[in-house]
């Protein structure tokens, strides 16, 4: 009886501590939402307004203003590059996991080393290349770059999922006379649906939030959502509520996707090493 009461007390104590810490970390996000629901005078008041009647007017303003094209560019760049990663990554992962080619360990190593190259190092040649190919400020350039950034990650991740398929399954299918196409469509694809989800999620996060290439290779036509936020640093005066509403909208897709697929997130971030 006494031990369980001591246990209960410590559980309550640690819960309080935990929730305080979580609150501190989550607070900036909460504050972003709150600021977006204020009017401009409320958002730029000193001392800060804590109690107020929420309004969606700033969200409406952002959505009816010049924000949507940026948002659509982000969506095109990240969805198209994610699909390309899946299309190119799955065969490569298959070759490395199910039917290992010669020196596949070296290939793996080479793949991932390209992901670890600092973005800064490849910026100059990519910029010159894009300029010569007339791809500056073109969404195609971002799609191609995001595909190449995420492809090594995708291959590693998909490989880690393919390795979990019991080899007997392939044996059995082959004994039954199943063709290669059948093997891929009937065995591989259904079994690695979680793998495809994890890969898509990680590609989506990295390409949606990507800023370095976007700011250097696009200016107006192909500019993505983070670049819309840049316009708030300079020359727009005090538009804190609008800023917060735009930041909320720009962050929403990745936040929702990450929350829905929390399990896949860990695996994706560690390239399949941690389950």
């Amino acid at each position, binding site marked *: 009886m006494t031990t369980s009461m001591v246990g209960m007390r*410590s559980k309550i104590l*640690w*819960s309080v501590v*935990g929730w305080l*810490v979580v609150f501190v*970390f*989550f607070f*900036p*996000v909460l*504050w*972003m939402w709150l*600021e977006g629901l204020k009017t401009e005078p409320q*958002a*730029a*008041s*000193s001392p*800060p307004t804590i109690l107020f009647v929420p309004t969606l007017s700033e969200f409406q303003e952002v959505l009816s203003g010049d924000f949507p094209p940026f948002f659509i560019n982000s969506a095109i760049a990240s969805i198209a590059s994610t699909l390309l990663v899946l299309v190119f990554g799955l065969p490569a992962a298959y070759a490395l996991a199910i039917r290992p080619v010669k020196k596949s360990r070296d290939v793996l190593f080479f793949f991932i*080393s390209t992901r*670890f*190259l*600092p*973005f*800064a*190092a*490849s*910026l*100059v*040649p990519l*910029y*010159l290349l894009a300029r010569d190919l007339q791809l500056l400020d073109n969404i195609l350039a971002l799609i191609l770059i995001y595909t190449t950034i995420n492809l090594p990650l995708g291959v590693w991740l998909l490989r880690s999922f393919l390795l979990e398929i019991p080899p007997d399954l392939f044996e059995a299918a082959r004994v039954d006379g199943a063709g290669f196409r059948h093997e891929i469509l009937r065995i591989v694809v259904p079994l690695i649906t979680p793998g495809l989800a994890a890969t898509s999620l990680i590609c989506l*996060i990295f390409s*949606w*939030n990507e*800023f*370095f290439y976007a*700011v*250097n290779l696009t200016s107006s036509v192909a500019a993505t959502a*983070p670049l819309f*936020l*840049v316009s708030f640093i300079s020359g727009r005066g005090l538009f*804190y509520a609008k*800023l*917060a509403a*735009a*930041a*909320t909208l*720009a*962050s929403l897709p*990745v*936040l929702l996707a*990450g*929350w829905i697929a*929390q399990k896949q*997130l*860990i695996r994706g*971030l*560690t*390239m399949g*090493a*941690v389950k």
Partner: protein
Amino acid sequence: MLTIYYSFFNWNLLKPGSFHFSGLDNYSALLTNESIRTAVLNTVVLTVAVIALSVVLGLAIASLLNSEVFGKGFMRTLMIAPFLIMPTAGALIWKDTLLNPIFGLLPYLLTPFGLGRVDWVNQYPMVTVVVVEVWRWTPFMMLIILAGLQSQNPEILEAARVDGASALQAFRRITLPLVRPFIELGALLGSLFVVQTFDSIYMLTFGGPGEDTTNLPFLLYIVAFQGFSIGQASAIGVVAVIITIIVATLALRTLFSIFQVEARR
């Protein structure tokens, strides 16, 4: 590869015909250049501070979430939000709505402590960048370390307790060795990303004041796109690669060893 090639040339985009071979000039300029030394130093300071703080915080929070507390799942859901928020958006929110000396919430809350009108972004630029990055990377560390803690067999800890080990002893002797590879993995992967920090520096301080928060990626951006000096920018890129290769080699070794432990199971 092209980066290495360009790094041997003197080439200014604004001067047509200025493309000519200059050998190691760009590199010798690097060694004597004050900016690049500052940038390397800033990169190292930023990376080490962010990784060290976020690993410690991440470990503490992961331990909390792994113990008996109310609403674990919901706590974890809220905790990962800072990592998912678009970095440019997060930095802007910190700068304009939390840290702004006049309208920000933090200076207001700190007024009773005599820290009322501190202009954090301009007076303590590096501290600001580190805080925002720690806020962003702690959830990442927490997720990885939590996965490690959850792979632990609770019966072993129970057995240790029966044998009279204190909670601290059990943590140091049993839990810590078990999650060590996870901590290493988180720290190494994290540092590969933090070395490349660009978004929050661009949004918070733009490398300033002066060059106080200019790290390598930001310096390269300035040299290439404000100074249009392609050869020198490429040479900076090569330096960044060398630093990264050192970290990445360690990261890959850890990755492979975790995969091998998994395979042996």
